[in-house]
């Protein structure tokens, strides 16, 4: 499996470093979901940031729920406000 999944709160400076970016794939998503390269460095990072492991389906569900919420918020905007914002779109995690 190329990637693994977790939730973790971005705590700011040092949350992910240049060295981390060299050592494993990392991509953040709504809901504090992180897609992490499934190697020793990636797993070590999840432990370092006190991440909570998720299955891909669980991670996808969190992202979908966040985007659903953003879509509801977008739909509630006035037409003028919608025109100057971008409607969120669901997507599939890698």
């Amino acid at each position: 499996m190329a990637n693994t999944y977790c939730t973790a709160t971005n705590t700011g400076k040092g949350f992910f470093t240049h060295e981390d970016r060299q050592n494993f794939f990392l991509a953040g998503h709504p809901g504090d979901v992180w897609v992490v390269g499934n190697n020793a460095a990636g797993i070590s990072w999840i432990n370092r940031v006190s991440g909570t492991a998720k299955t891909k389906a669980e991670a996808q569900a969190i992202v979908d729920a966040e985007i659903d919420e953003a879509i509801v918020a977008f739909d509630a905007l006035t037409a003028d406000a919608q025109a100057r914002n971008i409607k969120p779109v669901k997507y599939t995690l890698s």
Partner: protein
Amino acid sequence: MATYKGIQGYKVEYLSADPPDSTSVGQLWYNDSGSGAFKIGTSVSGSWSAGGALNTARSMMGGTGSQTAALAFFGAAPGDPSGAVLVSEEYNGTAWTNSTSGTSRRYNGGSIGQTSTDAGYAGGYGAPPPPLGKAFTEVWNGSSWTEKGDLNSGRQGFFGGAGTTTAGLVAGSGPADGATETFNGTCWTETANLITARQYAPVTGATQDAAMCVGGYGVPAASPYSNGPGSRIGITETWNGTSWTHVSGTLNLGRISAALSGTTTAAIIAGGSTGDPAPPTTTTATAETWDGSSWTTVGSLGAAEEEMGSSRTGGNTTALSFGGNPGGSISATEEWTDPIYTIKTVTVS
């Protein structure tokens, strides 16, 4: 026992302290004869790392300064009655600190200035009643905001700007009519329009006479750059103080509302909303660097974002992206550094 000099014909240099990272690449040395360890300097391609979080999550804000001394100002924030914030924040390379507030709540305004002590915010969306596109200008001197002359027309949909608070420039805003205005510290003057009118198009530049406008949307259907209604384009125009010129370098991924930092000869753009050649749009994490003639895809942001603020100086080697919107305003900051210098220890025993 064979020695390094006996095998290679050279002695490894002894240094009492490591040399600076940037000058150590390719060098081999040791510090402690008893450790049995050599050190070697290396460099690898750039990447984005996490920086300190803004105190107020926001998007569509102004930004100036460098990776280690930046300013974030104004912007949109959910929860505020007007949807916009006033408080400024200063970054020291590690953390953001709240600073003095401006007086006119706006977001999506044009930001001029190059340092954390010289910034200006022009136009942008304001609170109702309509017209929502404002013309106000406020200038920051490092300690307070002062109102200056208005833009010649209420405008919004800016991302960035160029020059300083005594010689600035904004362009790439809505309505997508290509309007460009220059600022002399007191008032704004309309000047030559962009060749390809567009809005939400990032702008950067060190001076009023050397700016660039990249990407955007709202391009008229008749334009050869249009890929259909709402498409995000990747064209680049440069400004020489008199007129805009289309240059051949085009973004590898057309985008709007991205973080753009640097100059007409060295810049980096990251994130934004894509949809090239056509919608549906998505938020991207990708980044590209500009060397004065072409864009090259480089390491991506840690998370896909759009509508961020950005630093202004640092060329294509250092930059900041802060705040933004992946479905709601956020506080995250990311720091770009290229190359990454590392001193590695090589154990030989």
